[in-house]
Every structure is written in structure tokens, then in C-alpha cells.
């Protein structure tokens, strides 16, 4: 692990970026600019697309500068369900991490206004996200623990 390496999570998967391997083939942002945007900081926005779409593009990286892992082993079988939205929305509490929501439901902000929700939406549980109410992965930095 190089000190320039970065990781980004949506609660379900973590995408790793190893800049030293990157040859700027531009595949990732041509394919999925809502997630991989080199003009933004952080340049990877894990809320920009579904887990499935992110995985698809990560796998296209020619040098494996981008790679990913499921946050827990159980997630690999879960991920196969992402394609077929289930009748009932699902709320899942991630150990030491966010609340992951998927399926069809309405999300309201603190003023009762309807908010954007993705196929998969991760909500902060640690109270320290810089992108509230969404998770931005900060729970890892602060060492949040919670069932």
C-alpha cells in the first residue's frame, strides 16, 4: 500500500485507487463521469451511480489502478440482486458503517422535502460526514463503531 493510494466506499463496496498505476487512459471518466470526475475533489463520488455500474467501470481500468472489494463477504451474493429491484425496499445497517437503502422508497430531508435517492443510497450513521445526510466514508477515519 502506497501512501498516495486512496479508497472510496458507498458502504457496500470500496473502490481503491493507486495513482502510481494510473496511465490516464481516461476510460473511467468517459464511461462514468458522475462517479469518476478528475476535476472534482474527491475525484471519486461513490453516490454517483449504482454499485453495479461502478464495478463495471472499475473492471475496465486497463492498469488496475482502480480496483474494488465488497465490504463484507456476504455482499457478493447481495450484489447479484442489484439488477432485479425487489418488490420491497431494503434497509441494511452496516457494521461500523452507514445505513444502506435500496429499492423503491421516498427520501425526505429535515425540512420534509423530497431528496434524491439512488438505486443504492448510503446514509451517514456516525454524524461526521461532510456530505450529510449521505455517507462519505468518514466513519472509517474517525473510527466509528456501531452495530
Amino acid at each position, binding site marked *: 500500500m502506497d501512501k498516495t493510494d486512496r479508497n472510496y466506499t458507498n458502504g457496500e463496496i470500496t473502490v481503491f485507487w493507486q495513482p502510481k498505476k494510473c496511465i490516464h487512459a481516461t476510460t473511467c471518466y468517459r464511461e462514468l463521469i458522475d462517479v469518476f470526475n478528475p476535476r472534482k475533489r474527491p475525484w471519486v463520488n461513490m453516490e454517483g451511480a449504482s454499485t453495479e455500474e461502478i464495478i463495471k467501470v472499475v473492471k475496465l481500468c486497463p492498469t488496475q489502478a482502480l480496483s474494488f472489494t465488497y465490504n463484507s463477504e456476504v455482499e457478493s451474493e447481495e450484489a447479484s440482486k442489484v439488477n432485479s429491484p425487489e418488490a*420491497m*425496499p431494503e*434497509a441494511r445497517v452496516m457494521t461500523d458503517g452507514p445505513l444502506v437503502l435500496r429499492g423503491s*422508497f421516498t427520501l425526505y430531508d429535515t425540512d420534509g422535502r423530497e431528496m434524491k435517492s439512488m438505486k443504492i443510497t448510503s446514509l451517514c450513521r456516525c454524524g461526521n460526514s461532510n456530505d450529510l445526510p449521505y455517507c462519505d466514508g468518514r466513519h472509517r477515519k474517525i473510527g466509528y463503531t456501531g452495530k
Partner: protein
Amino acid sequence: MEDNTATNTNPEVRILKNGPILIKGLFSFKDSSGQITTGEQELYLCRCGGSKNKPWCDETHKTIGVPD
């Protein structure tokens, strides 16, 4: 979106002002141990990070505050 399972309660998630996350309506809820509860829900989940009874809200936010 209409589907066969439509009920009177539209599933919703609310970020409550100065408070927890509310999950309401027909949801499949999975806790961190993988235990699944399915059905009509009204769940209040901690989002201040301070509850002593996570994932549930225990009103600790009233002491430590919760950012919006």
C-alpha cells in the same frame, strides 16, 4: 411506481430535524448481524453516532447534538 405489493403505506425514509433517521412503511430491514425483519416498519435509527443502543436512537442526540 405501482406494483402488486402496493399497500396504503408508501415506504419512506425521513431525516428528522435534530433527530434520528425514520424508516417507515413496508421495508425489509437487515441489522448488522444479518437478521432480517420484513413488514410494516417504524424504526428510529441513530445518526448522531452517540447512541448507546445502536442502531436504535436512544435520544443521546439531545445531549450531544446532531449535525444537519
